[in-house]
């Protein structure tokens, strides 16, 4: 699966409170409305200038904090196609794959805001077309790659009628 998009840079320790702030708790049952505030406490303009296909490029421990699945969901609703980070917090990681938002762990230091990126999920390769550099990422486990290919855990259960490791 190939993805292409523009890099949107963030720092270390972007928490689910940055992504889906608690003061919008009452919008959680209205995800498109909540998505108007996506990442507001890290970049107040992000929701206004995010474009379909954009790729978030962050530092360490992206998505730390609460289990709120609303965080990866509103990132996906906003049009982001993939997140690259040096590392991810684990609940955010599994939530993202469950809803078919791919994440890749890689050294993101060389990528800058606005760079054109090309990604192959199966191979885990990242090309920064602006800088003409290639990056390797930690391979996505087979089960989680399957979740992305099928379209998330719900589609998986619809297809196989159950949870199983394949």
């Amino acid at each position, binding site marked *: 699966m190939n993805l292409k998009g523009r890099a949107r840079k963030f720092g270390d*320790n972007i*928490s689910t*409170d*940055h992504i889906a*702030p*608690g*003061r919008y*708790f*009452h*919008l*959680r*049952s*209205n995800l498109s409305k909540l998505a108007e505030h996506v990442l507001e*406490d890290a970049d107040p303009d992000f929701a206004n200038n995010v474009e379909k296909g954009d790729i978030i490029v962050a530092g*360490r*421990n992206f998505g*730390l*904090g*609460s*289990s*709120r*699945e*609303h965080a990866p969901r509103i990132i996906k609703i906003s049009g982001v196609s993939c997140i690259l980070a040096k*590392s991810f*917090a*684990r*609940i955010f990681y*599994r*939530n993202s794959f*469950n*809803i078919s938002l791919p994440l890749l762990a890689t050294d993101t230091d060389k990528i800058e805001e606005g760079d054109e990126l090309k990604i192959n999920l199966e191979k885990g390769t990242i090309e920064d077309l602006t800088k003409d550099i290639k990056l390797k990422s930690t391979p996505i*486990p*087979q*089960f989680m790659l399957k979740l992305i290919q099928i379209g*998330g*855990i*719900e589609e998986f*259960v*619809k297809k196989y009628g*159950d*949870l*199983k*490791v394949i």
Partner: protein
Amino acid sequence: MGKTISEKIISEHSEKDVKSGDFVISKIDVAMVQDGTGPLSIDELKKLDMEQVFNKDNTILFIDHASPSPKKELSNDHKKLREFAQKTGAYLSEVGEGICHQRLVEDWASPGYIIVGADSHTCTSGAVGAFATGMGSTDIALGFALGKVWLKVPGTYKFILKGELKEGVYAKDIILHIIGKIGADGATYKAMEFDGDGIENLSMSERFTITNMAIEAGAKTGIFPTDEKTKGYLKKRNREDKFREITSDSDANYEKVFEIDLKEIEPTISFPHTVDNTRKISEIDEVKLDQVFIGTCTNGRLEDLRIAASILEGRKKNQGTRLIVVPASKEIYKNALKEGLLETFLEAGAAIQSPGCGPCVGVHQGVLGDGEKVLSTQNRNFKGRMGNPNGFIYLSSPATAAASAIEGKIVDPRNYL
């Protein structure tokens, strides 16, 4: 090769001999959501036409995060939870009953269980020797319907606690100290297993404080072996029959081992805006406080309220500082009332609110103003956590919080012992 506690429990639930790194489908014993995550779970189950629960008694919907509801949208979310409970027979924990993690350890969590919850602090229940972990709404929705979840078996970091704490130093200081040492991603994906002679002296309440915050080091769970303290606790909770011995094998594989000398730990504070930004109380400059909050799933238990009340007894909070106290559950509230603790708080000038998450989640009951500083006994201090990205959250033990409320600035609680 022997097994860690996590490997043992997951092996039992997946009918497979598992080791860290394996992907498995595991049966679960308890699944829960709260009012911030449950409505999405229910929406997903409706979409899948799977509005059913695997076990009525062990499927729980907690109304604790925005409780009582401060907004009509949240009231409608609560309605959705009530309707689902009525339809499926799942247990509904109503407004005022208390925080999910406290209620779980009161009435559900037992050794050897796998407990999954749509809340990151589900790891709290690990203190009774359960494998307890937080997940998202969809994971728990499927857990509700199918009684199972997918898991990657975590590797384990062992924390050997040695010796005893000095007076005026508490379990909260231990876990803040550990997170300060290893970092907010220091145990990402791992199980944090606590052991050593130092755990023998820790009460169950103190162990809950420690496992509650495992997620703040990125861990999948925090877990204690079971012992006489666990047995005594379960007996008090009328679940003595649920006791079983859970320990890791002597030749279990630990990815890392840390030794923590308890007597070296001082009262510890997390500074804004990350939990691992810790400092010893002796090393901080003056921090004036607008608000002090004592409560939450980390430190809203009876023992915590006793410690805070013993410091506030016969004293008044600082005039320029608001003091908010929220017992973690109805039972704790009742006992605190009986013991006179609530009267002590009231006399000291505190506002006491009904059991629940209180201001920790940033929805209500104590949202910060711009530039305001709060010292809280909660578990995280991210920017915006308490409802205002222009607020500053500091974390401490209940003792430090109580002493600091008196002086209106962060101070060493040992001055008041």
